[in-house]
């Protein structure tokens, strides 16, 4: 085989696909997103013909010439991907470029069809289209990369050439591979495990079972405060609580051997009664999942399967409803969706020459994972290093420790490097998902336009473990309620254990669920009061001087550091009135408009810490060490801009080294929208101090100086997002077409307009996936039935409308350089805006998602009136 011009003599294995053969020969730019021919991240050319290398038998290429991203001639296309920023995490980019390079003119003119085999989870495709069509318009070079300029991501050139090293794009000598044996039962006790047959397979080095696991209880969730989550998990448990829970880990010299040996591990189970529905799980007599846990495990009530609960009553809702002219009460069901970051969970652990445990992992939280490994494996901090390569998407799914603990234990036991890589199917049944929720909303209002009472009841399904159960539950009923000025507010909610895959952190962190319910209900209440829905929101949303109250009165550490909400509403309303957007497709289509609004605290509560170090480099420029991780959120670029602006230089003079526990003292992690406002604060401070030192020295020259900065995230502001849609609905097929999508964001100072716009576009696309097509299905026994991306339709190019993105002109009093976060919040108002628009068009209020064509058709045909609400 000739690979990128070089002849390779090796023989592929019989059942090997071309993708792994190429990676075995160092072509790490050939990515695995699905391993099933759906996502296109592995696209290469065989004798000039583009193919998905994961479904191309390797032996067929023996006499052929293969071109990967590494061998593609550098040119216009790659340059345009850099300039148009046609990537975020960059994991899909090599495949996207290899596909784009093979398109004919006719195909370039029909990208929705030509790119149906290329999935991007980050961008929403607008920037990819710009890159392929050559529509990029880079800004003119400037002397200073001031805040507010669209500086290009520093990783761009490496991303577009396949040189960016993601988690597994490295091959340590002597690497061993791990495969997990997973439970086929929803609830059982392991009676016996016999690994002798597996251990007898040549090449098998180790089989770990519950007898090897430390007894330490912990949570896979990673937070600044360990006590935020119930400690209900052990590394390998004798009790299995969901179908797919890891039972044993087989370590061998190849993936194939580990896979074969894993099938030979004999596990005998004593079955326990299982409960998969949260309502049933809190009923009397339900099987208890965590009755064995000590009080120190921080489970709200293990006897009733309640992982976390919240109860709060401000004012008097009974009086509020009594004085209302109309009361609207409805139950909304928010379904289970999955992150589908294209890089699956993966990590490699080894012991370095000093005897330290080192873990290279796909994580949003290297420091917190380091701390968890220390606790679980009983190691001192200085004996553990955790770092990331480039991370291929996260969306909250990597704010968990799902792989690092078990490979670390294996590396400690074998003394050799051990790697684990989840399959796409494992992501669906063995990682985490968004928390499904059943939300009962009751709202009362006066014809005068005043909201008189808000009552919300939540039953969240946390699955078998309580990772993020309290945080998501509290956050869900935080900003969704505090956004409204109303004296009478009541919240009661529980997050319930069931024998299903664990839910976890997901972009929006509970808010996408609650905002759908509350904003849909507000829209409906306005209609019942004969009020214009947007005007009704204006009348009741918090003003610039209002206190923020939701669960327990005003959260003391949240302030309105800036207030761009009315401007966002104006921008969306004027956008929808502008005449832009597509015309109605035909006279059989029903047309409607809808708006959704949401608010997000700029930082998680209780502190979020970051440390940064910046130093002059010999020969010019600076090296900036930060702890926060880059996984497509674009914070690396923001950090270069912060540092460049403080130092009066250009962003290309700042080399960022990130996400390594050896690099800085500490960083809580890249979650809760903190990469800009917290870690960025530390960077700004460090760079500002260095500037002062340089100035004091009288300019450059002399011994190299360095400075440090810290940030604690204790003061918090709020960011706002408003989404508007005009839709067309065709009742006879159930099709929904988005004629116009307008989003306005109050991001404070927009540090990098191109990048911030892209975050919004990507957030809208991801939220549209959840609202229109995605659903992770679990059968009555608790088994996940969704296995492939073909069955779990994330938005493809053809599914995503272009979204107009507008920014309110604000500057935040709290955020660094006036900035507020904008990676997480754009998802939150999208689903209700869509449902409100569909309601406006059709008269049907949808209380469940997703709005797939079959569901919409049936609801409009009146056949499923009860289901549709």
């Amino acid at each position, binding site marked *: 085989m000739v690979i990128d011009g070089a002849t390779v003599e090796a023989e592929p294995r019989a059942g090997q696909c071309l993708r792994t053969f190429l990676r075995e020969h160092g072509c790490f730019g050939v990515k695995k997103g699905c391993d099933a021919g759906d996502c296109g991240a592995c696209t290469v050319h065989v004798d000039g013909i583009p193919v998905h290398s994961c479904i191309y038998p390797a032996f067929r290429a023996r006499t052929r010439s293969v071109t990967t991203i590494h061998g593609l001639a550098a040119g216009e296309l790659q340059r345009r991907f850099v300039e148009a920023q046609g990537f975020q995490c960059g994991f899909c980019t090599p495949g996207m470029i290899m596909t784009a390079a093979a398109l004919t003119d006719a195909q370039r003119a029909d990208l929705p069809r030509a790119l149906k085999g290329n999935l991007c989870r980050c961008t929403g495709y607008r920037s990819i289209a710009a890159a392929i069509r050559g529509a990029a318009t880079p800004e003119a070079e400037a002397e200073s990369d001031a805040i507010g300029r669209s500086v290009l991501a520093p990783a761009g050139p490496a991303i577009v050439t396949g040189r960016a090293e993601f988690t597994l794009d490295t091959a340590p000598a002597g690497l061993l591979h791990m495969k997990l044996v997973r439970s086929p039962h929803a609830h059982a006790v392991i009676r016996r495990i016999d690994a002798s047959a597996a251990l007898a397979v040549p090449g098998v080095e180790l089989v770990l079972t519950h007898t090897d696991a430390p007894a330490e209880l912990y949570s896979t969730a990673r937070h600044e405060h360990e006590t935020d989550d119930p400690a209900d998990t052990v590394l390998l448990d004798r009790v299995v609580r969901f179908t797919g829970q890891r039972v044993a880990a087989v370590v061998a010299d190849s993936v194939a051997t580990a896979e074969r040996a894993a099938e030979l591990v004999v596990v005998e189970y004593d079955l326990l009664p299982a409960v998969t529905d949260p309502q049933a799980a809190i009923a009397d007599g339900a099987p208890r999942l965590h009755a064995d846990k000590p009080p120190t495990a921080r489970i709200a009530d293990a006897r009733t399967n309640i992982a976390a609960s919240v109860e709060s009553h401000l004012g008097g809702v009974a009086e509020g409803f009594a004085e209302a002219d109309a009361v609207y009460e409805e139950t909304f069901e928010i379904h289970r969706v999955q992150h589908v970051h294209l890089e699956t969970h993966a990590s490699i652990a080894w012991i370095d020459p000093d005897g330290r445990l080192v873990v290279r992992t796909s994580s949003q939280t290297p420091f917190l994972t380091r701390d968890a490994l220390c606790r679980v494996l009983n190691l001192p901090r200085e004996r553990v290093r955790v770092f990331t390569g480039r991370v291929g998407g996260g969306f909250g799914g990597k704010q968990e420790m799902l792989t690092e603990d078990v490979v670390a234990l294996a590396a400690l036991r074998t003394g050799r490097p051990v790697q684990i890589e989840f399959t796409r199917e494992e992501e669906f049944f063995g990682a985490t998902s968004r928390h499904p929720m059943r939300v009962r909303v009751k709202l009362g209002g006066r014809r005068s336009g005043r909201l008189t009472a808000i009552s919300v009841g939540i039953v969240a399904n946390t699955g078998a473990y309580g990772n993020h159960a309290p945080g998501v539950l509290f956050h869900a009923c935080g900003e969704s309620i505090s956004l409204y000025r109303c004296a009478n507010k009541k919240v009661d909610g529980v997050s319930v254990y069931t024998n299903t895959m664990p839910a976890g952190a997901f972009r929006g962190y509970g808010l996408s669920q609650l905002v759908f319910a509350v904003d849909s209900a507000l829209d409906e209440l306005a209609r019942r009061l004969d009020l214009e829905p947007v005007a009704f929101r204006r009348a009741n949303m918090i003003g610039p001087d209002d206190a923020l109250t939701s669960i327990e009165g005003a959260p003391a550490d949240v302030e309105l550091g800036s207030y761009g909400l009315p401007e966002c509403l104006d921008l969306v309303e004027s956008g929808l009135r502008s005449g832009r957007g597509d015309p109605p497709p035909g006279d059989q289509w029903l047309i409607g408009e809808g708006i959704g609004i949401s608010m997000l605290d700029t930082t998680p509560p209780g502190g979020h810490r970051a440390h940064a170090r910046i130093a002059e480099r010999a020969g010019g420029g600076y090296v900036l060490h930060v702890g926060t991780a880059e996984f497509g959120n674009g914070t690396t670029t923001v950090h270069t801009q912060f540092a460049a602006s403080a130092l009066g230089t250009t962003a290309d003079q700042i080399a960022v080294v990130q996400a390594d526990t050896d690099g800085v003292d500490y960083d809580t992690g890249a979650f809760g929208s903190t990469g800009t406002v917290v870690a960025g604060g530390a960077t700004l401070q460090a760079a500002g101090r260095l500037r002062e030192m340089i100035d004091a020295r009288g300019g450059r020259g002399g011994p190299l100086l360095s400075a440090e900065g810290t940030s604690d995230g204790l003061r918090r502001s709020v960011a706002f997002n408003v989404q508007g849609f005009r839709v067309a609905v065709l009742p006879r097929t159930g099709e929904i077409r988005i004629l116009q999508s307008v989003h306005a964001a109050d991001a404070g100072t927009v540090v990098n307009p191109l990048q911030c716009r892209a975050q919004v576009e990507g957030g809208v696309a991801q939220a549209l996936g959840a609202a229109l097509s995605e659903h992770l299905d679990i059968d009555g026994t608790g088994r996940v039935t969704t296995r492939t991306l073909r069955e779990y339709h994330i938005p493809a190019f053809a599914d995503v409308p272009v979204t107009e993105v507008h920014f309110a002109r604000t500057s935040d009093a709290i955020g660094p350089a006036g900035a507020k976060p904008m990676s997480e919040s754009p998802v939150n108002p999208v689903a209700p805006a869509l449902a409100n628009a569909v309601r406006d068009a059709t008269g049907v209020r949808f209380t469940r998602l997703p709005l797939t064509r079959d569901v919409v058709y049936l609801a409009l045909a009146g*056949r499923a009136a009860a289901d549709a609400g």
Partner: protein
Amino acid sequence: MDLNAITDVLPAGREAQAGWRDGDAWLAGGTWLFSEPQPRLRRLHDLTAFDWPSLATTDAGVEIAATCTLAELSRWRPPTAWPAAGLVAQCCDALLGSFKVWNTATVGGNICLALPAGPMTSLTASLDGGCTIWTADGTELRMPVVDFVVGPGRNALPRGALLRSVFVPAAALRTVTAFRQLSLNAAGRSASVVIGRRSLEDGSLAITVTAAVARPVQLRFDSPPNADELASALDRAELPYHDDVHGNPEWREHLTRMYAAEVCAELSW
């Protein structure tokens, strides 16, 4: 993905059929085979070893080899007297997989996979395609495509047999067609495909329903039926509407009835 349980890939041959074992499978393009774990398979028999010509066009019709790729089929230039060949492009487009998958996925593989939404099943069933099957004992069997696809994931191949080719007769290709297709998503897997085909010679009409149903179903009329006749024909046919993640059966039935009526109207003159 790597199929780690596979121990051998053998060139396919008629002698291999006689020694067919459990754990054997035919390999054509491999686009489906390599897209899912295949824990029960041990040996693959590579059909490309037969080196069949992909397309053989004669006055009588076109013989499409099982190993003809969708890309090759889409590049086929049929005689102008065969307007129904326009279905080729429409059906290739209906494949969920991208144009990159067309480069290796085969017509035979798509039909043998027997998915309700298989677009090559839609194409060849609607064009009265006939399968040529090579059985393990060295004989040949022939059967219509509509009978070859038995149910979701099930075909009529006996043990060790292979699909050699599909012959599409010129008579079917000379007809005028109407095509309707819809998925849950803009470029998703088909939930209903209804293809109407009317003879310019005798005015007869064939309606072939795929994707919405567990196996292809063909309804034949001497002339385009009116709405009532069509509805009662569909009632009598008791179509086995399919239920999976790509669309619920009520919606599929509705689409099918609506599209059948549209196809009839389009082909009424």
